[in-house]
């Protein structure tokens, strides 16, 4: 029997090794799945791990998808480190997109490029407002933030569906649930010609630095995390748990809203019922696989982006379904949680302990 033995100290090696092991486990299960489906596993792995980095354009596309994931995950990391379980980032992303889209629709032919700033700000405000609802209900009514934030995702989806199917519907849109395409002036500026990468990439990287400084170099960031690790110690130190709750939710809501704004005013260019792409949920996995560390999440966001692109490639070129992406995302988080046992425990061969 295998036996778990508590380590005196968490293993530094495994806290880095476990995400890699988890990825390996996911790949192995994936290979088994492909063989079971009668598909060539080497070709499938190529779709997921080689095609997305094949050339400059592919790399750009990889970044386009990684950007919203990273931005949302940065906010979620602050939440999870503070023991605030915001799992409704998808809803905050949608509301951010709605607010940004609302501003973008105000632009007309003569509007200058300055409109991009209000569009982006509106997205941030929208995401914050939506997250503030969760914070308010938690703070004033003690309502569980997991359930409230999640329920608000469904509400946000319906709200979007109402807007694009009703008041904001494009009159010339053949009755599709979508708004008219935004004016060119509202487009988030691209970094260079020939790639869809926008200044969103830069904003995400600035975010990495900002969150790193906040978490590890400021007193507020420290207080935030003490509250998550040891609520009693935080109370003793006089750190307000209410403040930590609001800070965490406003930061993550704002981040998710920003991601929503960058998407609708960037690659999408209009509001449609298909704005919700599951980035808010995938970002939860990004946050965990990246160890809730800003730099770690850069890598996990790129990995998760590979899963998205790989899934699409596998659909168009191998006749597999795109939903494989979701399977692998879930598997990755599962394996990570299991592998993380190695951080705190040693595996020993021996007689089984008491149960």
């Amino acid at each position: 029997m295998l036996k778990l033995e508590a380590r005196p100290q968490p293993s530094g090696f495994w806290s880095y090794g476990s995400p890699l092991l988890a990825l390996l486990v996911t790949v192995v299960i994936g290979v088994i799945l492909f063989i079971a489906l009668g598909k060539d596993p080497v070709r499938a792995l190529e779709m997921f791990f080689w095609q997305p980095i094949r050339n400059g354009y592919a790399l750009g596309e990889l970044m386009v998808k990684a950007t919203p994931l990273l931005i949302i995950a940065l906010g979620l990391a602050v939440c999870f480190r503070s023991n605030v379980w915001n799992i409704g980032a998808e809803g905050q992303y949608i509301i951010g997109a709605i607010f940004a889209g609302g501003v973008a629709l105000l632009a007309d032919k003569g509007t200058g490029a300055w409109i991009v700033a209000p569009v982006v700000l509106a997205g941030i405000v929208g995401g914050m407002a939506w997250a503030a609802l969760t914070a308010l209900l938690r703070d004033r009514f003690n309502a569980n933030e997991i359930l409230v934030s999640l329920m608000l995702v469904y509400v946000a989806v319906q709200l979007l569906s109402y807007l694009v199917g009703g008041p904001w519907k494009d009159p010339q849109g053949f009755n599709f649930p979508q708004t008219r395409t935004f004016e060119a002036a509202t487009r988030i500026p691209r970094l260079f010609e020939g790639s869809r990468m926008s200044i969103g990439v830069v904003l995400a990287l600035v975010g990495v630095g900002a969150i790193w400084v906040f978490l590890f170099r400021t007193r507020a960031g420290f207080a935030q995390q003490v509250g998550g690790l040891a609520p009693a110690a935080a109370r003793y130190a006089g750190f307000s748990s209410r403040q930590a709750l609001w800070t965490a939710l406003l930061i993550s809501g704002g981040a998710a809203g920003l991601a929503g704004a960058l998407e609708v005013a960037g690659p999408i260019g209009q509001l449609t019922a298909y704005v919700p792409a599951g980035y808010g949920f995938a970002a939860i996995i990004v946050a965990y696989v990246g160890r809730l560390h800003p730099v770690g999440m850069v890598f996990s966001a790129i990995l998760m982006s590979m899963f998205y692109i790989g899934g699409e490639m596998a659909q168009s070129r191998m006749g597999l379904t795109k939903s494989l992406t979701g399977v692998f995302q879930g598997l990755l988080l599962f394996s990570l949680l299991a592998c993380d046992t190695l951080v705190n425990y040693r595996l020993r061969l021996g007689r089984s302990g008491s149960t």
Partner: protein
Amino acid sequence: MDSYSLLIAATLNAGTVLALASLGLLINEKVGIVNLGAEGMMLCAAIAGFAAVVHTGNDWLGFAAGAVVGALLAALFGLLVIWLNTNQFATGLALTLFGTGFSAFVGTSYVQARIPERPSFGIPGLADIPVLGPALFRHHPLVYLTVLLALALIWFMYRTRSGLVMRSVGESPESAHALGYPVRLIRLMAVVAGGALCGLAGAYLSIIYTPLWVEGMVSGKGWIALALTTFATWRPARVLLGAYLFGGVTMLQFHLQGIGVDIPSQFLTMLPYLATIVVLALISRNPQWIRINMPASIGKPFYPGS
């Protein structure tokens, strides 16, 4: 009158899905485990049950398939949470994310599938009573079995020795362990039983309630079922009541649309989710009340011998 008896019938039908899942989650939480994977388990069970009926034509095999899939996924969750001491919330979330993806993946080939028409049900004699008959006595047997299940659970939890042991594991795993009860095994059994019930709920959804497979068709019912255990302050009878209440809210939208209320359908679809938030806030407002009723070890890991 007829439209109201149909509304009641639809309420019981929708409430059964919530009741089955929520009773399962109640069993989990009574031993101190919160499984946020309910949504994922229900989705996987929904497609498993639906596929089983498509291939065999037998509803009960479908229900069995759903329950088995739910139980297996719950066992996986249980092993991680109970033996490897992973975080319950994160692991449950992983299960939901995986279940959402996996069910969509498996379900791709069943999107167009139809299952055979089945004869309508009815309790002989009672089904023909005007108004009451269509409202109460023409349901699938599982609707009545769910009520029986709630009663059985009440009896088990509060009237048997095993039920007492189960509750003690949830209140104080340390004491139960000190008395020599296999805490981890009891927790695993409860988690598996809860998963089987969530699975049954998912299968009922795709086989009887809808009856077809749509990607993501559980649409938050697993999460509402999770909220229901809190509304019910962890009492089986109140879980049942709450489930029918929310079944009613879900059905109200169709009723309102039916009688021509002029509200965009999206706002009506929001109703159950908004109602969940409002009721959750009202019930949770008094932290003392929650603390008294909540199983004390909920969400906390237990390491024997530490």
